[in-house]
Every structure is written in C-alpha cells, then in structure tokens.
C-alpha cells in the first residue's frame, strides 16, 4: 500500500465512509506520492532517498507539518505535485526548524515560479518567527519551460538568503546536482553539507567548459563533494551517505541558537569541568622546530567528543569548529602546527574570518588557540592578495562582540599575534602557556638582524647565533614579558586550560558591547 512508503501518516483517523474525508485522503496521498512509484524507484536505484524520506531522517519523529502541498504550477498542462518541493516545519531535537526538500521525482526537482514561491514563503515565515531554515537541495536547476519566471524565482530566494543572513541559521544540504545560478543559494547560507559521489555544485558544467576552455573534467572532479571540501573550501561538512549528512545537520544545529537574539543551547556533556589532563603539559616539544598536534590539545581541553570541525579538509593549517566547554557551545579557532607549521595564508585567513563572523552572528563565544609563525611569505601569496585576505581576520575579530578568549600555546609572531584574537583586537581574556613565544618575529630571524655583526665576527657563527637566539627568546619573546607589559591576563599550565576557560566563559556570559551606528562596515573581501 502506498501509504506505508511515507513517514507522515495522517495523524487523524480517516473514516472511509465520509466522501469529503475520502477526497482529502486521496488528494493528500496523491500529493505525497510526488512523481509516482516508478520515479521513486528510479531515485532509490541511484542510491538516493526521496524528499520525504530525507525529511524523515532530518526531523524528530512525527514532527513534520507540511505547508502548501497542493500548490500547483500555474503554467497549466500536467499537474506538478507541490511543484517539485516539499515545504514545512518540524522539530530538530525539540526545536522548530523550517525546512524544504526539493523533490527530484517531480520534474527533476527543477525550480519554477511556484516552487520558488513556496520556498520564499517558507523563508519569510522562518525569518519572521526566528527559526532556522534547512534546505535539502536536489534539483536539475531552472525549469527551462518557465524561462525568466524561473530565473526570477531564484533571485527571490537569493535575496531572502542574504537578508536572513545572520538573523537565523541557514543550512543547505546538497543531495544531488546544483548547477548554475542555483549554487548561489547554498553559497549564501551559513553551512553547506555535501554527500560523497552524489552532490555536485558548479556554475558551469563539464560540457560548456569543454566547449569554451577545452578543459576535460567530469562532474566529480569539477564540483563533487571532495573538491568542495578539500580544494574550493565551499563545503563546510561532508558525509559518506545521506543519512550521515542529515545527522551532521542535526548535530550542527545543536550548537546554534534558533536566531540571533538567543543564546546557543547549553548541553550538559557529562565531562568534568575541572578535568586537567597531565598529557597536555608534555604536548609542546622543547625543540621549537618539532611540531605537535593541536588537534590532540583540543581533544584534551574541550568537552569530550564535542568538536565538530567545519572545513576540516581545507586550509588544514587552521582549525575551525563548534565545540563545547562545560556544556557551553563555543566557536573554536586554532592553528595546526603539524600542517605547514601553522602559517597564516590566504585560505586559512578566509576560513578563520568567515567562521569568526558566523560565531559572532549567533552568539557563540570565540576561543582561539594561537600557534603561528606568521604569514606565509612568497610571491604567490602576495600576488594572490594575502593583504586583503589577512585583513579579513582582523576585521572579523575586531567586529566580533561575543566573548573572546585566546590561548597562545607556542608561537605568536608578528601579524599572526595581532590577528589571532589579541587583546588589541578586543579579546576579553588572553592566556599563554609557558611555551609561548610572543614577538615581532622568531628569535633566529631577530638576532640575524639585530646582531648581524656580532654573529659574523664570532669564531663559530652558528653557535653564536643559537646562543643569542636563546637569550633573545628568554628576554623578549617570553610570555612573562608580555604579561608584565599588560598584554596577557595570565600564564597558565597547559593542563589548567580547561578549567580556566570554563570559568572564563561563565564570567563573560553577559557581555554586551555597544557598537557605533552605521549601515554596515566595508569588510575587505
């Protein structure tokens, strides 16, 4: 029986005798069938779920309330159930979210005037009522028959994405193709989730590229999940299956408030806030040229298992992710010294800046772990605009009015010291480990400049350089110097970091920072 295929069985009983309820039941069943059992089977044969099956996985059981299931294309001709999109609201872990899922079984999920109207109305409702929007995208793109209506339909959605940005969380889950202008909607949202070998995003497809630039590339290599997760830096999260992708969405939403006026949800993680891991004290090697794993430090400091990294495969020299400290949701930014020494570069600057602004939108305190020798030198970086991109990080941290705490674990040289949530950018509390080196530049580089003659004149220049560098390190880059000068709030043992951060977050909870009145700033992009 058809009904068994859909989760949203009618809640109220449908007596078979009343003809009015019979008609309702019939129409409702027809609407829920989408493109029909054959097309549903085709979708399954491709290893993909239908729109309603996806909503079933995304939302809490029996919480989905559909809106506008009978909306029909105005163009006439064959009926187009729901115009290829299922819209409505439901609960994610007990909190309302507005959702839409494009139905590939109906006209290939192509977007027409009515589909756009349904989505826009949904977004308007979400915006007015301060609830997140989750879009499950699986569409062939614009409905060519509807021509400019379709284009206009996309534009209406993009405008709403932009106006809702920073007001309510917006998540896009790519579950199929997303070509051409359709890719702009997810690009405007806060989180993009893709599925391996199944989602594709690009502005122009392989055929047009081949014709125009003669480059040969397949769908996967052009805009598949791996490309966007690891190369273009567009997919914040990626998963092996649809079920995993939707589980990721549920998990990510758990760190975010429903709208910008609310605080993120507090979730007791059952992890002792006073936990002090002695392994942390041995983590940073004494040899400054030996790297360590910042990920290992984060695992030991944050609530166990709470780190959800965004863009984990892109710009891996920087780490950005949601996490919890003592149950409180925070945004974590860090360098990973095990990846190209944790340098700052164009991509990591972009990654950090966008994440910092996302956290500031939704009241997530920022906890920043600093270990960077500075910006990556080189013509490629300079010609690539590292000045513009690095400036984004400065802008983002300066603008952020959420509580900001920084922990300098080792190197914080020059520009990297300043941009990474320093006190001068408004960090509320700045801590450093005893291994911290805070200076304009590294000790070797500094003595090479300051004591050039002394080193050249010495009988063993290499040994002299090393001795002078050690002296410089003790005198100028030691964290106690920075603390004495008033730029650090405390030097802490690595194993103390967790309890100190949790206490700090509790103290900074009520932070309110007035901002000058202006339309908006001119952030370098």
């Amino acid at each position, binding site marked *: 029986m058809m009904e068994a295929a859909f989760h949203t069985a009618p809640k109220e009983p449908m007596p078979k005798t009343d003809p009015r309820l019979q008609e309702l039941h019939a129409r409702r069943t027809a609407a829920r069938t989408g493109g029909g059992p054959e097309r549903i089977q085709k979708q399954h044969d491709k290893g993909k779920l239908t729109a309603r099956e996806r909503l079933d996985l995304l939302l809490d059981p029996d919480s989905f309330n559909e809106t506008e299931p009978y909306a029909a294309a105005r163009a006439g001709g064959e009926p187009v159930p729901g115009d290829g999109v299922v819209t409505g609201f439901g609960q994610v872990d007990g909190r309302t979210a507005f959702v839409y899922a494009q139905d590939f079984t109906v006209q290939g999920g192509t977007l027409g005037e009515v589909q756009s109207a349904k989505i826009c109305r949904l977004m308007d409702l979400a915006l007015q009522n301060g609830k997140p929007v989750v879009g499950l995208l699986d569409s062939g793109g614009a409905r060519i028959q509807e021509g400019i209506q379709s284009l206009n339909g996309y534009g209406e959605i993009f405008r709403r994405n932009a106006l809702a940005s920073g007001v309510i969380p917006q998540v896009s889950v790519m579950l199929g193709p997303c070509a051409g202008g359709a890719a702009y909607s997810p690009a405007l949202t806060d989180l993009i989730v893709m599925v391996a070998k199944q989602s594709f995003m690009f502005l122009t497809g392989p055929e047009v590229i081949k014709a125009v630039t003669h480059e040969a590339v397949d769908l996967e290599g052009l805009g598949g*999940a791996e490309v966007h997760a690891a190369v273009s830096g567009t997919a914040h999260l*990626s998963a092996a299956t649809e079920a995993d992708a939707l589980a990721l969405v549920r998990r990510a939403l758990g760190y975010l408030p429903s709208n910008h006026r609310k605080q993120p949800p507090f979730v007791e993680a059952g992890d002792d806030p006073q936990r002090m891991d002695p392994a942390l004290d041995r983590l940073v090697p004494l040899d400054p*040229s030996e790297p360590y794993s910042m*990920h290992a430090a984060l695992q030991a400091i944050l609530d166990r298992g709470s780190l959800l990294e965004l863009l984990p495969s892109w710009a*891996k020299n920087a780490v950005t992710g949601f996490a919890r400290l003592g149950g409180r949701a925070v945004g974590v930014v860090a360098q990973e010294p095990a*990846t190209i020494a944790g340098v700052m570069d164009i991509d990591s600057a972009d990654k950090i800046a966008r994440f910092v602004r996302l956290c500031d939108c939704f009241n997530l305190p920022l906890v920043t772990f600093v270990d960077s020798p500075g910006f990556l030198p080189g013509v490629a970086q300079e010609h690539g605009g590292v000045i513009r991109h690095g400036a984004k990080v400065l802008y983002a941290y300066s603008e952020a009015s959420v509580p900001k705490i920084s922990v300098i674990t080792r190197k914080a040289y020059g520009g990297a010291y300043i941009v990474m949530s320093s006190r001068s950018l408004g960090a509320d509390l700045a801590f450093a480990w005893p291994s911290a080196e805070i200076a304009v530049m590294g000790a070797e580089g500094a003595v090479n400049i300051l004591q050039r003659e002394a080193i050249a004149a010495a009988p063993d220049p290499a040994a002299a350089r090393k001795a002078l560098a050690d002296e410089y390190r003790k005198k100028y880059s030691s964290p106690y110097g920075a603390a004495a000068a008033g730029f650090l709030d405390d030097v802490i043992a690595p194993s103390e970091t967790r309890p100190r951060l949790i206490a700090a977050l509790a103290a900074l909870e009520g932070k309110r920072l007035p901002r000058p009145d202006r339309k908006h700033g001119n952030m370098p992009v």
Partner: protein
Amino acid sequence: MTDKDNPKNRVVANRRRRQSNPIAKGEIASPHALRAGARNDTIPTGLPSDYKSDERILAPIPGVVMQVFVEVGQRVAPGEPLLVIEAMKMKNTLRSGHALTVAGVHVRAGETIPAGKLLVEFERKGRLRG
C-alpha cells in the same frame, strides 16, 4: 559490483535510523568518520589539501628537504611518513593519506624546493605509471 558499490545497499544505509538525539547522548561518531570519500579521515598528513593525495604529493610550502623516508616500489601505509621538509623554521612531516605504492621520488635530502614541487608520486590503482 561489490556490495558497497551497489546503489541499492546505499539506500539501505541511507534509510538507517537517524542518530537518536545526538545532543542528549553527548558522544557521537567522530565527524571524521562521516566525511566524504575521506580515505584519510583521522590521519594527520601535514598537507594543506589532501585532494588527489592518492596520486602525488606536492610541496605545500617552499623549504628544504630534510629527510626522505621512502623509495620507489615501497608500499606505504596510511599515516606513514614520506618525507620531512624544513620550512618556517619547523620540521614539517608529510605523510601518506592512503595505502599506496611509491612510483617516483623526485627530491633528495638537502634539496631546496619551491611550493608546488612534485615530491612523491604513487602508482595509480590497477595500473603502473608509464
């Protein structure tokens, strides 16, 4: 077609019951395990981008090759170190993200290399590189 590639099995996997209330449970499968085609999930490879790292390793930044651990024909396991580059005054260990066979080593210890320099090539699956 193996079980894993059968699209019908993917539908079954896709229909798997959603993670029941991940928030209440606290612990959840690591996001690394959920990443797309992420053959190098939790293995820190020291590379900025792992795209196509099953075919070749390029120098992520300019530096000096300090040590080369592999030679042509050697099989490497995921996570196994391939070489160490000294850059930004630090030892950067580049590791394999996958189980592969080395087909070419293009640098030696002591060599100064620019960013993007081809360091190591791997045998493509199913056929030797010509």
